[in-house]
């Protein structure tokens, strides 16, 4: 369907189903239960899952396929965000022009950075991209303050022109909207003890992300995608095969830069503020981690990696000792104290520690990332159902799956 083969079509529909039903799936615990702390089904986090999913899918087109490890992709996300906010300040609060300009600006910036950085490969390429991103961050934070509003981040104001819209509505900044549907609009469904939130912004993200995902599948299955994998596999051979690897890598770089810009545009569409920190090297590092954690070169892995990191960041950081005591309320005081003492370093302000340990565990035991884990479980399952079937066609997981 849609020009996808059977397997990809089922993957596509599986992802679609997960995304559509995410408000249910991410809120598995009844509202008010102690485990509700682990619910992730609120609009902001669900939007973030998708937005960073898009970012990681795009990054994976570059890193997963060509093997070029960019340490500067956050800069494109940042540029996209700034372009988006400026559109909202100058033109209209409709998010479509903002998102569109985000992609355009990120694309142009990545063309510039890519054109220069791709003159080198390996770690030299990584350092070049890192240098560009860090320069963008430092300048955005300081001297470019008139354009970026520096430390605070670029935000909307009551006196912005918004020539196609209104500057203010009843003393408030108008809400970001999609042809009149405010992004913040939600409706809530309460069933038994459960509460599910369906947010307009989330579903806009969902549509965009499904398009982005579809495009990524097409790229993966295209001759272009094959060429990108050839770059990773043996660039030498590629050149002696009559293929000019530079435009291929540059195209991949720009496409992934545009994905980053798209993510940046969606971010400001959901929450109209662009902070300089989203260009910092740690932010670039984050998308690298997302991709590797999920499984570089796999279609859906980077999205899982993005979800994993954002979940840790937003859920673990909010658990505090009080909540721990609530959980262990049924236990004897001494035991509860002990458990809180043991868990304390890993939650709240210790969420970085948890994240660091998770990184290490996953890399050590699942070199192929979360997708390898999924695959292993899948294989276990398969072996049980049909023991005699042995498929040795591909000894290792082929990168495209």
């Amino acid at each position, binding site marked *: 369907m849609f020009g996808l083969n059977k397997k990809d079509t089922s993957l596509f529909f599986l992802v679609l189903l997960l995304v559509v039903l995410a408000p249910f799936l991410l809120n598995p615990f009844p509202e008010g239960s102690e485990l509700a702390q682990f619910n992730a089904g609120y609009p902001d986090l669900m939007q973030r899952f998708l937005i960073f999913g898009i970012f990681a899918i795009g990054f994976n087109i570059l890193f997963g396929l060509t093997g070029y490890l960019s340490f500067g992709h956050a800069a494109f996300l940042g540029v996209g965000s700034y372009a988006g906010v400026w559109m909202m300040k100058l033109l209209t609060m409709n998010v479509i022009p903002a998102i569109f300009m985000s992609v355009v600006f990120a694309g142009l910036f990545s063309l510039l950075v890519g054109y220069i950085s791709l003159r080198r490969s*390996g770690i030299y390429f990584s350092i070049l991209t890192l*240098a560009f991103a860090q320069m963008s961050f430092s300048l955005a934070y300081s001297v470019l303050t008139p354009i970026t509003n520096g430390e605070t981040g670029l935000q909307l104001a009551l006196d912005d022109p918004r020539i196609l819209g209104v500057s203010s509505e009843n003393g408030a900044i108008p809400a970001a909207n999609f042809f009149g549907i405010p992004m913040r609009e939600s409706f809530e469904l309460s069933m038994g003890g459960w509460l599910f939130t369906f947010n307009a912004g989330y579903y806009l993200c969902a549509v965009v992300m499904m398009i982005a995902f579809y495009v990524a599948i097409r790229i993966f299955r295209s001759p272009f995608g094959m060429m990108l994998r050839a770059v990773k596999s043996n660039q030498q051979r590629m050149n002696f095969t009559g293929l000019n690897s530079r435009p291929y890598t540059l195209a991949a770089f720009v496409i992934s830069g545009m994905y980053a810009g798209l993510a940046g545009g969606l971010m400001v569409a959901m929450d109209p503020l662009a902070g300089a920190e989203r260009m910092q090297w740690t932010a670039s590092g984050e998308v690298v981690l997302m991709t590797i*954690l999920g499984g570089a070169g796999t279609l859906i892995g980077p999205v899982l990696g993005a979800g994993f990191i954002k979940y840790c960041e937003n859920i673990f950081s909010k658990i505090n000792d009080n909540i721990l005591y609530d959980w262990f309320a049924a236990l004897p005081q001494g035991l509860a104290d002990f458990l809180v003492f043991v868990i304390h370093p890993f939650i709240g302000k210790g969420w970085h520690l948890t994240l660091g340990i998770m*990184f*290490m565990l996953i890399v050590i035991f699942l070199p192929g990332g979360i997708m390898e884990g999924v695959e292993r479980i899948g294989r276990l399952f398969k072996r049980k159902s049909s023991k005699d079937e042995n498929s040795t066609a591909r000894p290792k997981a082929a990168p495209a799956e």
Partner: protein
Amino acid sequence: MDAILLQILNGLDKGSAYALIALGLTLIFGTLGVVNFAHGALFMIGAFCAVTLSRLLSLSFVTIDETQKDFLGNPLKVETPYVEAWFGPETGAAIIDWSVPLAILFSIPIMALVGLLMERGLIKYFYKRPHADQILVTFGLAIVLQEIIKYFFGANPIPTPAPDVFAGSLDFGAMLGMDPNIIIYPYWRIVYFLFAAVIIGAVFAFLQFTTFGMVVRAGMADRSTVGLLGINIDKRFTVMFALAAVVAGLAGVMYAPINSPNYHMGMDFLVLSFVVVVVGGMGSLPGAVLAGFLLGILESFASMAQVVALLPGINQIIIYLVAIVILLTRPRGLMGRKGVMES
């Protein structure tokens, strides 16, 4: 003129810190082929060795002074360090005062042990893995190490002063017959520079003049061949990792009085030292040292008000700008070899 002289001094000082970290980083990369994102954390642990020792030395017993009150109005608890009780107040105070230089001795075994544990416990399983995996696992390790330090020492910087004799500054200007107070430079920073020079010299001498060093250098050039000679190169590489950890740790110990140590100082230096290593050329020890000093001096010059007035923001980006220019004109950095880290 004096301004330029001063900025060169500053650059040398900053450069020595970059060079020391980059030296260890490139040593690990050159010998083990591992991209170690936890190297900044080793620098940070070194600095905290100094903090720990000064805390250990000032371990105190408490006596209650009824004549004074604390902030809650309770009798004041007066803490007296054990060393002062044992060695008398003056000697004791002197020992505490000298805790940073003493920490050099204290940190060597600790850093060697940390390096050994890291290599044997984790890094050795990653020799054959892609660089991306190495980056991820060492980055995870760096986070874990820094969070552990934060758990015990907090997030605030901890003042760790140099011994009193090194307080104050040397007046170069007066020595050269200029007016006093024109070119002055803190004693401790001069000590730091000399110390860095000695360490760098020692590492080079070790690699140049010992058989051990020779084998390691050969291993850096071509690992498989040395392996074929029947030399157990792995064991030597473990030692090299520990050595790199000690170098980073010593850099950290001596840096503690210059900037009060905090738990994220490693990350602050990490990115810069990677840039330094790459600008120097991956796997080149002299390159790392050269690039460290070069970038340190350029950074100092770019911070001058006159330069910033001309090019706003240049002080923020100079290192990256130089890195880009060098990498575009010299594809493998200043002294890099062909074929390292390019695939």
